[in-house]
């Protein structure tokens, strides 16, 4: 693809992943010599409806967003899901545990009827996605890895092994030894095990690996005096869209 036109889009999200993109600084300068950024509301006022690559942050939480994302798919040659909200549904899926009516009332009060809402979902459940950049927030190096792969027309190297691998690479002591609930054994690596490195249990923001060993993870939890219930509630922070995998 010669000098593609790139547009960033925001759906239901905090736009934090787009801010991460802006912090890539020196590599970003090199990157913009290879692409034209035509829409990026975190960084510029100009907009365009003519683009080759759509980088989409956020999940789908309203009917109107379904139409909007379909239009983006029809226009773009390549669609990239950016960040946990877009790749797995993310934190927005917390609301899926409740009745939509109740959620509307809690959030909008008297104005509840003015705003429609539907259970939150990743963009993949509405349109075909070509590339995924996981995490909350995304990892800078992975953003570069994926954009480079698109430009070189190669397959990006996205890990399909658990976070434990990166913990081992960092020579971290396993958090289970410290009695901390960790979703690392079933969560896709690529974050460089940043949370466990700072002794916070993994919450699974990058989603499950393709074939997680859930039963072994359950055993690990119980061997260390932790419960599956604790683990599920930790996982629900980001993984509300795939709760059924635990049942």
């Amino acid at each position: 693809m010669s000098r593609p036109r790139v547009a960033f889009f925001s759906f239901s999200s905090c736009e934090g992943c787009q801010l991460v993109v802006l912090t890539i600084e020196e590599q970003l300068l090199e990157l913009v010599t290879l692409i034209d950024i035509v829409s990026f509301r975190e960084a510029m006022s100009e907009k365009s409806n003519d683009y080759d690559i759509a980088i989409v942050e956020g999940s789908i939480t309203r009917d109107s967003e379904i139409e909007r994302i379909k239009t983006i798919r029809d226009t773009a040659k390549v669609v990239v899901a950016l960040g946990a909200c877009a790749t797995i549904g993310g934190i927005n899926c917390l609301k899926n545990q409740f009745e939509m009516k109740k959620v509307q009332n809690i959030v909008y009060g008297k104005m509840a009827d003015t705003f429609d809402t539907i259970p939150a979902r990743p963009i993949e459940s509405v349109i075909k996605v070509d590339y995924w950049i996981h995490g909350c927030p995304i990892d800078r190096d992975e953003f570069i890895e994926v954009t480079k792969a698109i430009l070189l027309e190669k397959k990006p190297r996205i890990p399909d092994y658990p976070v434990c691998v990166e913990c081992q690479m960092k020579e971290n002591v396993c958090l289970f030894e410290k009695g901390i609930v960790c979703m690392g054994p079933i969560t896709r690596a690529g974050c460089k095990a940043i949370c466990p490195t700072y002794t916070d249990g993994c919450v699974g923001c990058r989603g499950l690996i393709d074939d997680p060993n859930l039963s072994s993870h359950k055993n690990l939890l119980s061997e260390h005096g932790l419960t599956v219930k604790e683990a599920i509630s930790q996982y629900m922070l980001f993984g509300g869209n795939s709760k059924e995998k635990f049942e």
Partner: protein
Amino acid sequence: MEKRLYKKDFGSFITSLQGLGYKTVAPKKDNNLIMLDEIQGADEISLDHVITNNSIKEFFFPKTEKVLSYRMEKNKVEIEEPEGFAVKAVIFGSRPCDAFSLPVMDKVFNWDCSDKFWVQRREAITIVTIACDKCDSYCFCTSVGLAPDAKQGSDVLLTKISDDEYVVETVTEKGENLIKGLEGVFSDSPSGVPDRQVATVEKKFAIDKVKPWLDENFVHKVWTEFSLKCIGCGACTFVCPTCHCFDIVDECTMTKGDRVKNWDGCQFKMFTMHTSGHNPRSTQGERWRQRIMHKFKYYVEKFDSILCVGCGRCSRVCPADMNISEMLEIIATEASQPGNKD
């Protein structure tokens, strides 16, 4: 003549080595871990442990290293090879199992091609091992034909004879030259036979039963059963002193890049994933079988060595508590009960 090294002389040992231009590596406390790592002075050395958390292999075969850089311009490719990767060093206080892993790995790194990174580092690094005066329930060196005071792979072997005294044995010419170059650090032995403090490591299985059983049981329920717990984290392969699989990737832009060699592991699903999407080892049971087969059958057939030194690190580090010596005990037991196949 046999020499002695007193604990009080560790300081002059290390500073003399540094004076001779050696980088010094020794077991060192790092929060809750004991790591083989570069030290500046003898006060950093820690010797109360059974075994270091990391193995010796990363000093010869690092987790990640650049094998070349390239730059492309029109029809021209410029290649730049790295230099200065083999630094003269002494690894002090490694264990006999770790030291033995080196001659075992020499075979594969000098096989169809000679891996210059490994070979040059092997030449540059001298190994001063300390025999084990204690062990834990994970140790099984005696089951794979080694011993807590084995000499193979070491250049010098120290054996504790009291809290502050070690017997010094030179094993290789390299070791002898090292000792000769360190006047005044080592003391002459007093007369009498010293009482060597060497751990007693329990023998857990009969190794001679293992390979014949593996020859016959590529298909067996035990592979799946034993690996049900495995989460595929590959920790066992990273801490193993004899696991040596790596992956080569280009970290590049359109016109330039580095070709990088990274540790890889057979316990990962992606390890054998084909471009087509087909995976010849699609289950964890098959991956676990590969690990055992490679160590106790394929390597033996190809290089006449077991690819395991019984350090037990894989079992200590496994988050799911899989224990390789338990697996080998099961195999040895199965081997004693013929006809008990699936």
